[in-house]
């Protein structure tokens, strides 16, 4: 028996998100430096989260017969919080590496960090 078209779309979207998350994990594992590794998890918290949210919206909208958008809240919260975490973590890493005497680019303005 053929599955409904909406379920095929949801299945494809979920598989795509699984592949994207796996790519993010591989990036977290394989990239050489902390500042390079900082880029990888953004793939999971942006693209994968958007895809899963789209799949969830399609599934619950078809299931309920009316538009159900409440999962959208997660995307809004995530797109506010993920950059803040990344920037604070990058500043912390920069501070610690400079404290340890690593050869990193100097601060842009004259003052110390």
């Amino acid at each position, binding site marked *: 028996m053929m599955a409904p078209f909406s379920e095929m779309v949801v299945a494809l979207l979920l598989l795509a998100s699984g592949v994207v998350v796996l790519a993010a994990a591989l990036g977290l594992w394989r990239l050489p430096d902390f500042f390079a590794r900082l880029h990888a998890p953004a793939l999971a918290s942006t693209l994968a989260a958007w895809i*899963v949210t789209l799949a969830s919206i399609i599934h619950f909208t078809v299931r309920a017969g009316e538009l159900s958008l409440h999962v959208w809240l997660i995307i809004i919260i995530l797109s506010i919080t993920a950059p803040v975490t990344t920037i604070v973590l990058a500043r*912390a890493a920069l501070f610690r590496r400079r404290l340890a005497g690593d050869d990193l680019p100097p601060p842009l303005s004259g003052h110390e960090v």
Partner: protein
Amino acid sequence: MSPLLNLAITVTLGLYALAMGIGLLRLLRGPSAQDRVLALDFLYVVGMLVMLVLAIRYDSSMYFEGAFLMVLFGFVGSLAMAKFLLRGEVIE
């Protein structure tokens, strides 16, 4: 729930589990403390995605509340740990 969607959800959860395993390796191995915090933040995000997929699997919106809380507490936790790495104090 068609067998196709069921299979896709199983495969997706397997891929997520694999990704979380790799993230856990980075958490255990990670040369510096900030690597571990980054890996923990990644684990929080993937755990949130698992909750969203389980919401589709069991057709329940309760999982949505769980995912929402995981986003918020993951943010607070990661921010507190990054702040601790920055100064050695969470609240100063």
